[in-house]
Structures are given as structure tokens and as C-alpha cells.
């Protein structure tokens, strides 16, 4: 091959050497293999997904399903109401996430502490986590949403929104506390030994050495929990909170058309899919970082 411009790699940077004939052949054959793979992937996707769609739309009930679930003009009509409900879910998620973060951190620190004075609190934290991880969230929402107002305690709120959020916070704190605790336990004891031998107290060691590393490690699972939290805020609709799920329910019960539910589902997906993609990216990055550390 005889051209005068310097050879370039894939990203267009000039290479300082001219690739050998053999290398050029290899590059060409790599490209050919890549093209073949892409072709196979496309073909198989078209065949599989295409036949699934065909199966659905040629089924005998498709026309009625289409009318009751995918009535797009009705979907557009209720979009505003459902979206307004979704704002409630998002606000609830943000407030709950902050409270969960604080509460879960306290629980995790109590469960990992070894201080004798904290023993009763450690036992309480353990019992708390056991209980709230073992009871379905829906039950907790019902118990708190209907149980607390029934107590008729002076000054205590009857707002279903606040009670529902409380239930979500109580349950999720137990999950998140366990995630944080596993992060703390995953830090190698030699880090603690090094910090203690420098004279740091056990709480200083936790704050400056263990926690920063532990939290970095649990970011991906916590982002997963955030996605789950957003979805689960839909459960408070059972108390009558007008969130996206409830708004869809109201709209569909008016006309006996289920399109509002599909609308709500699509709106949830519009938020959760980018969030899950982002979580995957963060996870991949964190794995790469840990591998690099292991090699050093």
C-alpha cells in the first residue's frame, strides 16, 4: 500500500508507524467479522420480535385489548392528570430518599458499632431491621395509614400523604441500612488496623477511613433502591393519595377503559429506564475501579 499521508488509527489519530501489510489484512478481516455479527444480530432481532408482535396482533382478542388498553386519543386526554399525579410520586420519592438516607445511616452505624454503651440501641436496630425487612411494604402502608389515625392521638397527623410516606421511609430504611452495613463490612480489616495504628479513635476511623470507602462501593445498589422506591411510592395510592396510579385509576373507572394505566406505566418508565441505565454505568465504572485497585 503506498499512500503519502501517515497511517491513522480508528479514532483518526496519526500513528507514528506505517502498519504492515499483515496488520492491514487483520484490520480488514476484523471489520468483515464485525459486519457479519451486526447482520446476524439484526436479523435475529427482527425475526424474534417481529413474530412476537405478529402473534399478539393476530390473536382473536387483540382488537378489544387494543381498544381498552391502547386507546391513544383517550390516553392523551388523561395525560395531564396522570402526569400531575406523577409529580406527587417524584416529590414523595425525593423527600423519602432524604429521610431514608439519614435514618438508614443511623441504623447501619448502630448495627456495626461495638461500643458497650450502645448495646441496647444495637439490639433495637437489629430487631427493627429484621421486622421491617420481613413485612410486605403494602401491609406497612395499610397498618400505618389506617392504624395511626384510628389511635386518634391529639396533634398527630391524619394526612394520608404523610402517613404513606412514613410507611415507605420505615420499610426502605431497613433495606438501605443493610446495604450500607454490607458496604462497611466489605472494607478490609487492614484499613481499620492502619487507621487505628495511626492513633485514630474508632469513630474517627469510621468517619474518615471506613465510611467514605464503604459509601462509594454501595452507590450502585443504592441507585437500584432509588428506582424501586420511585415505583413503590405508587403503593400509597391505596390510602387515597392522588398520585399517578390513583389518577389513572380514577380516569379508568370513569370510562372502563384501561389506557390511563398504560399511560401511567409509560410515564414511570420514562424516568426509571434512564435511571437504571445510569445505574448500570455507575456499576460498571465501580467494578473497573475496584479491579484496578486489586491489580495495584
Amino acid at each position, binding site marked *: 500500500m503506498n499512500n503519502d499521508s501517515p497511517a491513522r488509527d480508528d479514532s483518526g489519530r496519526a500513528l507514528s508507524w506505517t502498519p504492515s501489510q499483515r496488520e492491514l489484512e487483520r484490520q480488514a478481516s476484523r471489520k468483515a467479522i464485525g459486519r457479519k455479527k451486526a447482520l446476524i444480530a439484526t436479523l435475529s432481532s427482527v425475526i424474534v420480535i417481529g413474530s412476537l408482535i405478529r402473534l399478539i396482533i393476530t390473536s382473536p382478542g387483540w382488537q378489544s385489548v387494543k381498544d381498552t388498553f391502547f386507546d391513544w386519543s383517550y390516553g392523551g386526554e388523561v395525560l395531564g392528570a396522570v402526569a400531575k399525579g406523577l409529580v406527587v410520586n417524584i416529590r414523595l420519592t425525593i423527600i423519602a430518599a432524604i429521610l431514608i438516607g439519614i435514618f438508614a445511616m443511623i441504623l447501619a452505624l448502630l448495627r456495626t458499632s461495638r461500643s458497650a454503651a450502645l448495646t441496647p440501641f444495637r439490639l433495637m436496630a437489629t430487631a427493627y431491621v429484621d421486622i421491617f425487612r420481613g413485612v410486605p411494604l403494602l401491609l406497612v402502608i395499610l397498618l400505618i395509614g389506617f392504624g395511626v389515625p384510628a389511635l386518634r392521638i391529639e396533634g398527630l397527623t391524619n394526612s394520608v400523604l404523610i402517613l404513606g410516606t412514613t410507611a415507605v421511609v420505615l420499610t426502605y430504611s431497613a433495606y438501605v441500612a443493610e446495604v450500607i452495613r454490607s458496604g462497611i463490612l466489605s472494607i478490609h480489616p*487492614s*484499613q481499620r*488496623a*492502619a*487507621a*487505628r*495504628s*495511626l*492513633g*485514630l*479513635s474508632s469513630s*474517627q476511623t469510621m468517619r*474518615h*477511613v471506613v465510611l*467514605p*470507602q464503604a459509601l*462509594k462501593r454501595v452507590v450502585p445498589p443504592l441507585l437500584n433502591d432509588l428506582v424501586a422506591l420511585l415505583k413503590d411510592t405508587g403503593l400509597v395510592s391505596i390510602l387515597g393519595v392522588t398520585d399517578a396510579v390513583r389518577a389513572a385509576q380514577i380516569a379508568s373507572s370513569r370510562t372502563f377503559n384501561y389506557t390511563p394505566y398504560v399511560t401511567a406505566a409509560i410515564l414511570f418508565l420514562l424516568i426509571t429506564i434512564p435511571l437504571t441505565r445510569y445505574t448500570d454505568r455507575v456499576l460498571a465504572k465501580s467494578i473497573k475501579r475496584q479491579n*484496578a*485497585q486489586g491489580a*495495584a
Partner: protein
Amino acid sequence: MNVLEVKNLRKSFEDNIVLNDLSLTVPDHTATVLIGASGSGKSTLLRCINLLDTIDDGSIYLDGKEISDPEINVDEVRKGLGMVFQSFNLFPHMSVLDNITLSPIRVHKVSKAQARDEAMTLLRRFDLADKADQYPDRLSGGQQQRVAIIRSIAVKPRLLLLDEVTSALDPVLVNEVLSIVRDLKADGMAMVLATHEMGFATQVADEVCFLKDGNIIERGPASQVISAPQEAETKDFLRRVHEAGRL
């Protein structure tokens, strides 16, 4: 004046007796080198001195004060002790400078500016000034270990404990770490170090202690213990080290 006195120390893990009635004295400004086969208890002794492991019997004195007293404030004792581990144990989420200044700032309440100044002085002295803002995973093993040593002397300890600080390094990197230890020894820093490097032990040791079966079988200047051992077990150990090519 003795910096360290260990008297009749006993330590076992379950039914494995690791240290059995061991006594050791380290005068100020001297280096004591612990040698012995793998598993002879060198690390365990250092960890006991640093109160990372609790002892079963005996007593340990630092500057004449008993530190094996359960009532003692462990954090207070450790302010006077520096320890460097075989596996560096730098904090991966902190820059080199932050690793070094963490204890001076948080434990010894030195001002941030002063801690940084002192850390930079040490880094410059040991040719690491350009790494101050790097994170540990960007450093070579030898550089990491040198930073770990600097970190442990930044708090000006009375006694430095070094546990096989070169055994995780390849031979080329060993020298840069050993030269730092030699410098500290020249400064008059009192230290106890465990090592497999007999040549290095000969250079820095005021006293060499050969550990076997939980006790010090032979002790004395390097010219005696390493060059002309008396005990059969010491001779046997040194012969095997020699065969492994580390003499």
C-alpha cells in the same frame, strides 16, 4: 533509657501458642531486628506491641509506662507508636498528602497548614514531592510503601514498628524502601522491624533477635547472630535463607 520493654509475653490463638514467655528490651535510638521463619510470630509480636492484638500474659512498657494495662487509653498509646504493614494499607480514597496529614490533623490537632508543610518536607526529603496529590493506586509498590513509612513518622512516634516492609516488593523496589529506613535510623529513630532481608538487617540492626517456637532463641549484634550464630537452630535458619538467595 529504654523505649520499649516486653516482659514474659504470652500470646496464643486458640491452641496455637505463638509467643511463649518472650522478653525484649529496646533502648532509645536503637534498631532491633526480628528474624525467624514464616509463622514464628514476628508480626504477632509487633501487633501485640501496637495493642492491635490483646496479650494473654506478661506486660509491655513504653517509656516506662505499662501499656498492657486494660485501663489504658489505647488511642493515647498509639500516638507514640508508628506502625508500617507488609501490605502498605494506604487509604485508597485519599491523596498521598491527605494520607500523611490525616493523623497529624485529626489526632494530634496540628493545624492544616502546618501538617501540610511538614508532610511536604518529608515527601521532598524522600523524593516523593511530585506524588503529593496522586492517589495510592497510581503509585508503584515501592512508592506506596515509602508513603506508608512517611505517614507513620509524620506523627513523630517514639517507636516505629516495621513489619516486613519490603516483602511485597520486587528486588529493585526493595532498595528505595530500605534506604528510607536507613535514613530514619541515622536520625536516631527507635525501631523494631521484622525482615527477611539479612543483608539489610546487618546494616541497621543494633540487636538481632532470632525467633523460634515462640521465643527468642538467640540475640546479639548482627556480627554475632547473623555472621557467627551460636545456636544450631539459628545456623539452620540462616542456611535455608542463604539457599533461598536472600543473604
